[in-house]
């Protein structure tokens, strides 16, 4: 088991990333809290010897996405909110909100790859490793996701 200080450091470092992944998959505060507890509990109990900060970050992303998927399949998950009710979104008058709403209305399979590629900067091959998908599948998802997002945002292109 890891030292409490090490776990707290990981929370401080990765909390924002876990929070964004939760937003990509989930839409309510209770489920987000569950995921936070679940992910960092696994981190604390994990005996994985991380070779680098990137290794650690990829591990956290994989565990978070798996936890979100497990929760989505769970019978006991809290109710799903509409986009307007999602906590943590910027105010309606901000452009960021419009972009986030567009991402959140994409089918789930596109949301995670869009986030990991355009925000975290992972290439398709890395995303494939993290999500356990074939890189070609990731390329396809990225391509379709980009087109859908373009339509939703009124034809503005997303750079490659």
């Amino acid at each position, binding site marked *: *088991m890891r030292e*409490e200080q090490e*776990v*707290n450091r990981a*929370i*401080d470092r990765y*909390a*924002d990333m*876990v*929070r*964004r992944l939760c*937003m990509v998959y989930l839409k309510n505060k209770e489920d*987000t*809290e569950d995921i*936070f*507890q679940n992910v*960092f*509990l696994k981190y*604390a*109990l994990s005996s994985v010897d991380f070779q680098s900060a990137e290794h650690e970050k990829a591990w956290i992303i994989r565990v978070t996405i798996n936890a979100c998927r497990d929760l989505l399949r769970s019978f006991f998950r809290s109710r799903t909110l509409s986009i307007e009710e999602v906590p*943590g*979104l*910027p105010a309606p008058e*901000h*452009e*960021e*909100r419009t*972009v*986030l709403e567009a*991402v959140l209305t994409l089918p789930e399979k596109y949301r995670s790859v*869009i*986030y990991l590629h*355009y*925000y975290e900067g992972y290439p398709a091959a890395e995303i494939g490793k993290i999500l356990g998908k074939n890189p070609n599948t990731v390329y396809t998802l990225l391509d379709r996701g980009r087109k859908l*997002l*373009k339509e939703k*945002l009124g034809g*503005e*292109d*997303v*750079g490659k």
Partner: protein
Amino acid sequence: MLENKLKSAFDAVQAEEELKANTKDFLHRQLYGGRRKTRAVPKRLAACFVTVFLCVSGYFAYFTPVAAVSIDINPSLELAVNRFDRVIDVTGYNADGQALAEELSLRHMNYEDAVNAVTENEMVAACLAAGETLEITVAGTSEERTAKMEHCLSQCAYVTEEQVHCAGHWDEVEHAHEAGLSLGKYRAYLAALEEEPDLTLEEAQDMTMRELRERTECDSTAEQEEHGNGQNQQKGHGNGMGHGKHHQEQ
């Protein structure tokens, strides 16, 4: 470029400080002996204190004597009785009394059963058959209790009402113990001392109840004869105990 807008949009999403603090608190409680443990410990401690308090108070309630029953014939022994009418200690005040205390297992018995066990004993029966005097003396911290005990003991199979005395004062028990005598014998000694001031405690310890009572009776009789009959001059015992001679009826 929308890519930049995506970045700034996701930048706007950050983990709330409350969320981070709750997660840290959760892990602290779950894994590192945090608040849950510190909350649980006082509860467990409180439960332990209550249990210990109940045990200690129960122990003291049970093992604190509130009455003494002195049984004197030749064997002289005393029963310490608690508020639950149970014998919590048996003390022999002479060799025969000690032998009887060891022979009979009287601890934790109801005091009436204990007195019955003593009076039914062969050694006591032999003393009675030899014409010795049996006296049972009760004292306690409460007059009500001693009166009730006196009544109950007088109903015992081998005991008559005349053989049971109520000393009434707990102080007297302590004085008797300081003198190395059982309560009943101490009272008999005080009565004899009125007639025979030279009588020592050591002598009294070795005397049977009959011998002690006879001293009182003889001196009393002799004095009465000295003053002549019919002069209405009666010898008062002076200690207010109102002793008489109580022979076991054969």
